[in-house]
């Protein structure tokens, strides 16, 4: 067993885990933050995307001990509990950008990262190219692309949309 310590959604957390524990397992099974999903075994689907020190990363392809001391943000940490949604979450709701919702947490975490890197004015091509690591089996992507363009614009005006 190995001791891990990190900050998750602004709170210091610790755990005693088997070295094989992936970050996604630590989040879901130890911290009970089940918003982060696992959609594949091959690091390709992006359902597990979280922010590690402010950068989108696949939590299924990272051991918990690798992010010792790091700052992790999950879908649960984007907005205040019981407060208004983060502008990107709101844009997904407004634009009907989900059906089953399985890919949605990863999509939103990737989307916020895209805005941080590419700015608030995103064209369709950029969004589609940047979403290469996120797979959706339901929507056909059109509304996801629309939501991200709208969410990016809304983030410009929102106090909630600062960098991690």
């Amino acid at each position, binding site marked *: 067993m190995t001791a891990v310590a990190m900050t998750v959604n602004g709170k210091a957390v610790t755990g005693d885990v088997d070295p094989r524990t992936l970050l996604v397992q630590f989040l879901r099974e130890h911290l009970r933050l089940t918003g982060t999903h696992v959609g594949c075994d091959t690091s390709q689907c992006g359902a597990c995307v979280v922010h590690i020190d402010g950068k989108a990363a696949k939590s299924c*392809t990272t051991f918990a001990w690798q992010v010792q001391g790091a700052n992790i943000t999950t879908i649960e940490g984007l907005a205040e509990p019981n407060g208004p949604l983060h502008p990107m979450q709101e844009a997904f709701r407004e634009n009907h950008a989900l059906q089953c919702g399985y890919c949605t947490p990863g999509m939103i975490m990737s989307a916020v990262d895209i805005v941080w890197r590419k700015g608030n004015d995103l064209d369709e091509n950029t969004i589609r190219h940047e979403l*290469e690591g996120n797979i959706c089996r339901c929507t056909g992507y059109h509304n996801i692309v629309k939501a991200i363009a709208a969410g990016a614009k809304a983030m410009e005006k929102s106090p909630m949309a600062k960098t991690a």
Partner: protein
Amino acid sequence: MYEFKFHRPTTVRQAAGLLARQEEAKLLAGGHTLIPTMKLRLAGPKHIIDMSQIEGLSGIEVKGRSLVIGAFTRHDEVATSSIVKENIPALAELASLIGDPAVRHRGTIGGSVANNDPNADYPAACLGLGATIVTNKRRIPSDDFFKGLFETALEPDEIIVRFQFPKVNKAAYVKFPNPASRFALVGVFVSKRGSDIRVAVTGAGSNGVFRVTAFEEALKKRFGVKSLEGLTVPVDGMSSDIHGSAEYRAHLVGVLARRAVAAATA
């Protein structure tokens, strides 16, 4: 996944010592090849030697006539570096085409080159630019480094420390990505440095990354798309799988080489 112990050395020397001493030990860099392989139980190292705590292994600088990139430098840092964009823009472009943004935030150049996946992008840049691969033991010219599918000249306790890419006059990389995995179905890197012309191909060869000397000779006469007209690579020696036949790959090599020269001379 099989059980393992992990170690977090802070110097290259310690890491090399652990590699030599521990049975079935493996280095871990970005983990974006090793961890998926471990999850599938295709790899089962008993000891993992994490490189993330070693000082001085990442970073990008210009030294004399070379661009020097530390082995632990992540794909995204190369893709967005103003130094790389200014000195060898084709290399920044290549890094920006690897996988997806999340993969680029974690994966490293050293991990990619040490792994030598036949469909990986960086091996084409090393061979296509004539890079020197600097390890904890020696300096290996890229022409002597890539030995076949997932095979390199690295010894079991050898660690890549940095890469030296010579600055070139012209270079370009054109990739035909596999639409599902984003790896290169075929990728061609061309460069010109004085009279030194290189054409390196990834994804196509049944023995991994290779140079096309016939194309290089033709480009020596004149570095332009016309010089490659009608030239092809032999189908023999191309790989063939569900993603593409050997004939298809041979055809793509010619097409992408012409596009790369066009991009390099644009």
